[in-house]
């Protein structure tokens, strides 16, 4: 499977499955690019800077992508989480 095909499938997954759920936390996930079977994503809204963003990405989105498109070699988060202005869960001590 080529990068273009992967891009289409990831886009479909984000639109139909991921974003309706993360949208309930005020967040969204965008596909930035697919290059050499590496998927580049960016999180926004409530996901940007969220204390649980890593869980959403690694335990949710990345797994769904790998299950759906086994050809994907890596999923990279390109989000500038430090600039998130409205994280759903803000980190605190501990």
């Amino acid at each position, binding site marked *: 499977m080529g990068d273009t095909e992967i891009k289409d499938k990831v886009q479909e997954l984000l639109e139909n499955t991921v974003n309706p759920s993360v949208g309930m936390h005020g967040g969204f996930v965008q596909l930035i690019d697919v290059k050499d079977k590496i998927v580049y994503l960016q999180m926004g809204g409530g996901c940007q800077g969220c204390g*649980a963003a890593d869980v959403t990405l690694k335990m*949710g989105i990345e797994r769904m992508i790998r299950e759906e498109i086994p050809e994907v070699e890596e999923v990279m988060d390109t989000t500038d989480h*430090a600039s998130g*202005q*409205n994280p759903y869960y803000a980190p605190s001590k501990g």
Partner: protein
Amino acid sequence: MSRLLLLLPTTTYRTEAFLNAAAKLGVEITVASGRGQALTDQQPTTNLTLDFLNPEAAARRVVDFSEKVPIDAAVGVDDDTTVLAAVIAKALSLPHNSVSSVSAAKNKHLMRELLRTGGVPVPRFALYSVDDNPELIARTVSYPCVVKPLILAASRGVIRANNEGEFIAAFQRVLKILEQPDVSARGSLSRNILVEEFIPGQEVALEGLLRNGKLELLALFDKPDPLDGPFFEETIYVTPSRLPSSVQSAIVETTRRASGALGLREGPVHAELRVNPQGPWVIEIAARSIGGLCSRALRFVSGMSLEEIILRHAFGWGVSSLERERQAAGVMMLPIPSAGILTEVRGQPEAKAVPGIEEIAITAHITQELVPLPEGAAYLGFIFARGETPQEVEAALREAHRRLEFVITPASEAKIS
């Protein structure tokens, strides 16, 4: 493949480090959180929502879950989830610390009682109810003293009082903190206030690992900024310690005795002690590892992170070496200087350019309402440094901090561009 149940509060700083460590070990992970994760419905074997305030109910849920998805180790990352991990491990018949020992480590009063009974030096202390009259108590305590909640972490609600007037004000201030919804929800433990003797001296933090009841030292951090109150803001941690080796040995021995007095036998230990001419005094001991992002300051000769060591131990796998790297290392937790809205952070490139500085992680977000100690429960961020000596590391952290500027606007005036 082995499966880890990782108990992660949604507000913890530790998520990335523990997930990376688990991925490196190649284990399957189920993340359990106290509040719903966004994709729990889509990934029901890897995401679980538990009632963290009700460990018994949470454990029953995990037992049901593990019939379909077997769990091989349960690990918590903070005081609350460490207790929960012990309850769950007991229910699943996995190796664990006793629930009573980790519960004692979480309850500052019970901890002190067990330490005192075990002959471990602790400040003199007394427990009061939120319904007690502070004016009456103020006449009976010795000064200076420290007023603190039983259950909160990282110096939240900890206030020094030097006289009766300061005591009454401190007691009333702690009462207000205990009334905050996130605290009052924690039940009876939020209905008491601990008052203890202020112990002068240098404060240190010990990071250790208990294996079959034996304490092994991972790192001893000096805290070079004096912690004399009125609030006890954590700032710089530097390791290795510059204290004489005999004093360091006494600190390790005191922590070993403290762990034993609580009944802790397995897993990470984070202890805070004060050292003065009378020797080391235990201020806190927790059955968890160091909080915040501070574990990034630790590297080990084996190439493992602190979290990998903790997870390997939880699975009962061997850890060949616990030796820390030769270099000195340190972290500065960036204190919140004033209340307001964070509108800008300046000087990060200049701070990062300081020799020895490895990373600056600003964890507060622009537009975040900042609440300083003693009411607050967050840092602005963390600075990490490495160098040949602890002195170099400390100097680098201070210089980097000096170059950072946090623009904080009073909440009533804040306009974010």
